């Protein structure tokens, strides 16, 4: 071996070792709660920057009928196997009741016919999944704001929690059940609806039948499907693992703005 190739071999080995060490360090940081917590602090900065730059009442872009996706991708649960949900689905949701309770003056129990009779809105919007893809659909549903006024939110209510009929992960303690939460500014946003129709047809099971949330300007995991119950709360720390949603409990951001 000539000195040059020897040195090159040594350099390559040193380079590979440094690379492996650096990569290993990154994995160790990722798995250390304090370290990843430090990195996650940047998300707080992102949220505050976004709140500063984006009017919370700003509308999401609405599209034309020609823009509607023919291949809107169903994601997360697409055919829930939870017994209660299957029982409702098999009867065409005739027995379905949306429960609105928690910190409200008048708890509600609404049939699909009741919900369809509420003030509605139709919008063609883009759904942006955290994975990176986008699909466009026309959604029709009951506006959440007027529905909340019907129930009468108590002054202590700060968030709405959407309890869903699907378990995305099968667990013994029920922590795999899907849920989401939003604040009252988003709840009263004009484009926030409980959608029962998609592209002029009854909302399909794969997309969250009988009722899914559309809270535009946020990522796809916020758009809770199979909504069974809306609970008004002052805090969501006692739910799931305390982060305000199924994916939030698994490391994703609650404000879901990027």
């Amino acid at each position, binding site marked *: 071996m000539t000195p040059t190739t020897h040195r090159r071999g040594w350099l390559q080995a040193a380079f590979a070792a440094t690379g492996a060490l650096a990569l290993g360090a990154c994995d160790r940081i990722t798995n250390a709660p304090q370290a990843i917590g430090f*990195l996650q*602090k940047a998300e707080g900065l992102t949220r505050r920057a*976004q709140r500063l730059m984006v*009017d919370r009442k700003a509308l999401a872009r609405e599209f034309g009928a020609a823009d509607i996706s023919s291949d809107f991708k169903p994601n997360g649960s697409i055919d829930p196997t939870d017994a209660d949900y299957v029982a409702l689905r098999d009867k065409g949701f005739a027995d379905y009741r949306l429960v609105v309770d928690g910190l409200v003056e008048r708890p509600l129990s609404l049939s699909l016919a009741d919900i369809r009779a509420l003030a509605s809105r139709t919008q063609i919007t883009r759904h942006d999944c955290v994975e990176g893809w986008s699909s466009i659909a026309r959604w029709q549903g009951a506006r959440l704001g007027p529905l909340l006024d019907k129930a009468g939110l108590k002054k202590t209510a700060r968030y709405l929690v959407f309890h869903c009929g699907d378990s995305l992960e099968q667990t013994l303690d029920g922590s795999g059940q899907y849920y989401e939460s939003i604040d009252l500014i988003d709840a009263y946003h004009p484009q926030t609806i409980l959608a029962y129709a998609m592209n002029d047809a009854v909302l399909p099971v794969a997309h969250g039948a009988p009722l899914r949330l559309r809270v535009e300007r946020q990522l796809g995991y916020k758009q809770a499907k199979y909504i069974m119950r809306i609970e008004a709360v002052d805090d969501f720390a006692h739910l799931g693992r305390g982060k305000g949603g199924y994916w939030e409990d698994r490391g994703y951001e609650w404000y879901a703005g*990027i």
Partner: protein
Amino acid sequence: MAKPAKLLVYRHAAMTRLTHWINVLALTLLLMSGLNIFGAHPALYWGQKSTFAHPWVSTTAEQQGDRTVGVTRIGSAQFNTTGVLGYSGKPGAQEAVAFPSWATVPSYRDLADSRHWHFFFAWLFVINGLAYWLVGLVGGHIAKDLLPTGADLKPRNVWHEIVTHAKLQFPKGEAARRYNVLQKGAYLGVVLVLLPLMVLTGLCMSPGFNAATPWLVDFFGGRQSARTIHFLTATGIVGFVLLHLFMVVASGTWNNIRSMITGRYAIVPDKEENAA
């Protein structure tokens, strides 16, 4: 004949050196966490929405007979990229993954954690870039050192630089004290075009920010176009870095690295200067 004495000149201001190394750190981790994020949906599209059956770029793992292979498609072209794109890993532990584990942070597929890395270093990158711009504009670094002069842009000079670069001949004496026109063009292109493009297309990924600046998404031709341009611009930056590293080695590795650490760059003086 004795070797001509080398002259150490002060070439890089402290701010240039500091922002350079912060950028090395930030861009490395942004790239590696970005490749992990890409793995969550390894396909690119043009326009507002995804056309799932027809991405213009995609990587997948596919079964061919009794073997699994990594397949990368660009337009209608198809490449077997087993071991690098689509399907990679140590023998016996290969998996369907867009980019191999040695290229991503974390090394295993994890969208939530790679996003934490990405957004943390995005802030470092943006703050660092703004500081560089502010000091570069106010202090005159950009106007004085990076903007090409009239003489730089004369076709004869540009052609001369292209030819000498191709022969790997580098300027000596007085000419080595400043950037040549190709360097100026490359650095300005990165500082004024590629890096800002990275931030702007990145912001277009945000459905929240989209509501505030829908015109920016339109400017890039839609949200999926912005994602594609984000990826292409990153590829352009990787290309720049490879060329940059090649030129560093070709024109004197240690001299260049020292100048980016201490600021001092050794030049071989012109003959007259040497004689004087």
